[in-house]
């Protein structure tokens, strides 16, 4: 029984088993009626409320749906990205106005059609294949492509996202495409990329891009079995321009020089600016080291061309350090750059406006010696260094005019080592200053000892750039003289290598002036080898020039060296400086020097460097070679005879070299075509034809040429050995001719 009915019965004291009496029945009926009424009312309320709420929900749904559709439509119509929807067969189901612009038609003209209605078959095939690919992949595919909008013809780079679309039952609707114009973004990216990888001033690649290119080039060189060169380039004199004309001018110069150097390179090469006035060039595809030389020269030339900036004509030059890849050992890009940097430094030292190849062999030697800085220091504290002295003499008078103190290492294991074996290791090391001071102090001690022994001789010591530019140099020197009171400062000469890194010439000049006040004089060592010889000569208060031994050694065989030597002597005279020739190894060299007016000399033909205790005895017993007596300086008018002599030596030497295989072609065989012959026919005949020796010389000259022809003929017949055996004969004829030339000089 229903719970309610049983309660209704219970409340009236009734039960289901017994029929009610009339009274109870009349009470029960209204109650039950009320139940039905309640139920009716309840049903009415429920049905009504459900109907109304259902209507409300439907209205709400319609409102939201139309509002959603309106929003979607607005979005679709106003969005600036092309949007389209194609069915799996490629028929357009929908597209927005932006997409229609691509085709240059209205949206209605596209829907229901396919790409085949708008494009060539092959292009439409491509599009369709792409759609199928997206469907196959079952996920979004992203593409980038350049397209032309048919409506206004503008081109744009579009990033297209194509997505397969399914309905709620999982059935494929087609492919939805959304394209975005990324032209500007790409341009920005490219700009940013350019900024990140290029130097803002010159637009050349920066260090970042250089690293990248260098890595690529190294990989490529490895793969192709080719070489690449890394050139580290630093402008000479740029700082001065910046300082005197301002950064704006300096910047413009950098831009112009950068462009010029870039143009000097080939297409595939890289020129990067890696800071201030430093550039790095990567030269690719080199078959060998030599093939880089023309480009290096072009770079140097490009850097050193005059530049017009703000009505100024400026000029700089470049110092280049080169290294190559691959090398015998594994190299990374940083190591290559360091090598090239180091070589660039050497180019600077060697006088700038030049290139210097990184010496791998020397580098590994230096590396090998690196730990020997400690050994050298121990050598110094262990008193293993000694000074040897090489005399300097006046060849004409036979006077001993001084001695150069030269450091030697009495190595406990390796024996006596010349300075070249260890000084280069510490060139840029503070130890060089310590050793330099030891040299001066030891030389002064020796001079003091000689003084006590009653002998006095000027002594020169070599001072390196590092030591000379040391702040305490002058003070220390002064202190050392205080410690050696009986040594006259005027007896000490300091030799400074011209090729030393005398970077701050003003400062060096001040140091020299301060030393001269003490009484110490200066000599410029290795004069003529550096690029800035004239600058040094003009700016530095040196009293003596030492002509580099390379010129002295070759002057008898190489007219060019003789010309340099003569020029240096003329310069010394003009600047009122003493001159001494070093490296005099033959009596003939001495004669030539005397004839040129250079009386002071130093070299093996006079004496090798010796221990200090041998010096006094040597000085007492030395006499100049007899050949040096009576060799007055030859007047400038007669100098051509000296050159003629050298020309002749050089010609004979060339014949000999040809026969010995050291030369591919012989010198001119016509006696009127060789340079000596040219002299004979011009200056010789004009000034000396009346002299008895002159005729003899002509005869001898012909004989020399005749014999030479015979020797060459033998050589041509394959009888080279026979020809070589007759070289002595040729040399005798040469010497006879030279003797006559000497007579010619004596007679004038």
């Amino acid at each position, binding site marked *: 029984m229903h*719970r*309610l009915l049983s*309660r*209704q019965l219970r409340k009236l004291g009734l039960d289901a088993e017994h029929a009610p009496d009339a009274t109870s029945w009349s009470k029960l009926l209204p*109650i039950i009626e*009320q*139940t039905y009424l*309640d139920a009716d*009312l*309840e049903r*009415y*309320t*429920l049905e*009504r*409320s*459900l109907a*109304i*709420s259902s209507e*409300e*929900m439907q209205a*709400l749904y319609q409102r939201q749906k139309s509002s959603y559709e309106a929003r979607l439509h607005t979005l679709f119509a106003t969005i600036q990205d092309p949007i389209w929807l194609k069915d799996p067969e490629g028929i357009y189901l929908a597209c927005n106005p932006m997409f229609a612009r691509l085709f240059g038609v209205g949206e209605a003209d596209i829907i229901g059609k396919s790409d085949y209605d708008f494009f060539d078959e092959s292009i439409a095939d491509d599009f369709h294949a792409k759609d199928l690919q997206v469907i196959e992949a079952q996920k979004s595919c992203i593409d980038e492509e350049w397209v032309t909008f048919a409506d206004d013809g503008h081109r744009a780079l579009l990033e297209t996202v194509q997505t397969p679309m399914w309905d709620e039952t999982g059935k494929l609707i087609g492919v939805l495409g959304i394209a975005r114009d990324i032209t500007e973004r790409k341009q920005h990216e490219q700009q940013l990329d350019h900024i990140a990888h290029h130097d803002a001033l010159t637009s050349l690649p920066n260090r970042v891009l250089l690293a990248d290119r260098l890595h690529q080039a190294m990989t490529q060189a490895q793969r192709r079995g080719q070489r690449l060169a890394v050139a580290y380039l630093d402008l000479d004199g740029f700082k001065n321009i910046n300082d005197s004309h301002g950064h704006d001018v300096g910047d413009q110069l950098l831009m112009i020089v950068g462009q010029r150097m870039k143009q000097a390179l080939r297409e595939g090469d890289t020129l990067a600016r890696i800071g201030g006035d430093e550039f790095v060039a990567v030269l690719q595809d080199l078959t060998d080291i030599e093939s880089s030389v023309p480009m290096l020269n072009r770079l140097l030339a490009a850097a050193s061309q005059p530049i017009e900036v703000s009505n100024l004509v400026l000029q700089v030059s470049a110092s280049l350090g080169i290294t190559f890849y691959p090398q015998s050992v594994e190299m990374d890009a940083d190591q290559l750059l360091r090598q090239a940097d180091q070589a660039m430094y050497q180019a600077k030292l060697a006088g700038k406006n030049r290139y210097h190849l990184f010496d791998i062999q020397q580098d590994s030697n230096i590396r090998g010696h690196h730990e020997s800085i400690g050994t050298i220091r121990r050598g110094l504290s262990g008193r293993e260094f000694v000074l040897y002295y090489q005399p300097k003499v006046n060849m004409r008078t036979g006077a001993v005019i001084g001695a150069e103190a030269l450091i030697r290492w009495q190595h406990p294991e390796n024996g006596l080592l010349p300075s070249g074996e260890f000084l280069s290791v510490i060139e840029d090391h503070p130890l060089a200053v310590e050793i330099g001071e030891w040299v001066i102090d030891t030389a002064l001690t020796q001079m003091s000892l000689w003084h006590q022994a009653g002998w006095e001789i000027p002594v020169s010591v070599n001072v390196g750039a590092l030591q000379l530019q040391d702040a305490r140099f002058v003070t220390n020197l002064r202190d050392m003289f205080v410690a050696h009171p009986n040594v006259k400062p005027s007896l000490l000469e300091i030799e400074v290598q011209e090729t030393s890194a005398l970077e701050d010439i003003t400062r060096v000049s001040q140091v020299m002036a301060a030393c001269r006040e003490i009484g110490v004089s200066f000599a410029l060592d290795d004069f003529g080898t550096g690029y800035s010889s004239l600058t040094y000569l003009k700016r530095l208060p040196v009293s003596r020039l030492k002509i580099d031994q390379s010129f002295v050694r070759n002057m008898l065989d190489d007219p060019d060296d003789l010309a340099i030597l003569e020029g240096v002597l003329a310069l010394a005279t003009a600047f009122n400086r003493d001159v001494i020739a070093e490296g005099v190894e033959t009596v003939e060299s001495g004669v030539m020097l005397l004839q040129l007016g250079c009386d002071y000399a130093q070299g093996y033909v006079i004496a090798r460097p010796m221990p200090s205790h041998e010096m006094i005895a040597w000085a007492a017993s030395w006499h100049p070679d007899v050949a040096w007596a009576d060799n007055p300086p030859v007047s400038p008018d007669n100098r051509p005879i000296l050159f003629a002599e050298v020309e002749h030596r050089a010609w004979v030497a060339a014949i000999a070299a040809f026969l010995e295989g050291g030369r591919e072609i012989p010198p001119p065989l016509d006696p009127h075509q060789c340079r000596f012959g040219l002299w004979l026919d011009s200056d010789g005949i004009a000034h000396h034809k009346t002299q008895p020796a002159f005729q003899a010389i002509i005869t001898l000259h012909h004989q020399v040429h005749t014999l030479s022809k015979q020797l060459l003929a033998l050589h041509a017949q394959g009888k080279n050995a026979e020809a070589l055996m007759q070289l002595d004969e040729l040399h005798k004829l040469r010497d006879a001719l030279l003797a006559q030339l000497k007579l010619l000089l004596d007679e004038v």
Partner: protein
Amino acid sequence: MQLSTYQYSSAVGWNVPLNAELDSENTLLIIFGAADLEPLKAGLDDLRGVFRCALWIGCSTAGEIYGSTLNDNTLTVAVVRFSKTTARLAAYQNTHAASSFQAGASLANQLAAPDLKAVFVISDGLSVNGSELVKGLSSRLPKGVIVTGGLAGDGSRFQQTWVMVDKIAQSDYITAVGLYGEYLGVSHGSQGGWDVLGPKREVTRAQGNVLFTLDGQPALELYKKYLGERAAGLPATGLLFPLAIRNELEEDGLTVRTILAVNEEDQSITFAGDIPQGGVVQLMRANFDRLIDGAADAAKSISLSDFVEGSLLTVAISCVGRRLVLSQRVEEEIEAVLESLPHANRLIGYYSYGELSPLASGRCDLHNQTMTLTSFWEK
């Protein structure tokens, strides 16, 4: 704790003799009665004669619950003599709904003490904003104090209610009894069982507990549309469609608001608690079985884990809206409650215009359309 429950009707008189031994200064007398007390005057005088020292609290109803039965025009009384618990009464004369917050705060201040365990509130059913009353109480009471109670009723007339103050039935009062001491056991449960109906609607205009428009349309118009021919029974028939208000804390679920009055002039509806402007509300509708299940669930959620034996009193406060909907079946929800409680339990209660009970988060709130139960015992 000693407990007796009594029922009085003019026809029968007291169902059992009153036990004077229960009277003491530590005795609480809870009385629910018809809005019109005139026919019940003799019974009331009996009580005044027997329970002189006891603290009286009670109110008029929309139906009195005694055991499993629902009755009208009776007095339903529970007399509780505490042995280890003390009780204290507080009252506030609240003539305007606007001062409901102060009323709550004042009552809390009157009752506040360190060992206050529970507060049982009985308020006038018409001149009050139950939401503000609860806020006022909460603003002053410590968090652990359990606050339950209800608003007085006036059948389905919504004209005048009374509250027992100084053993006299008076309008426009809010009263509360504070129960103190660690030996008091108290637990509560409250459930609705209504279903939401139709779309969510935005409260576009409301002021306090007066609602003007939903989604820009007059609220009264909407109610009339739903009620159809039953709109003539407003405001009572409005109880068929309470409003669900979404609470800020999700765990607190929906708060149900029931209609107290309608105003044809400005097409507004007055609810028993606040309707927040801008809030989202939804109409609700009854489902007999779910309402009855809800009542059972309220009983089941009462925690009696530390009740062992002795007397147990449960006060049921159910909403007049439920009675209107359940009609003849209303006693089924009372039976459902009883079936879920121990046999020792004695149940009295009434149909109200609003229920007070904590939410799941512990925050007390005003409810409508719920079965709200509070059980008391001594450990």
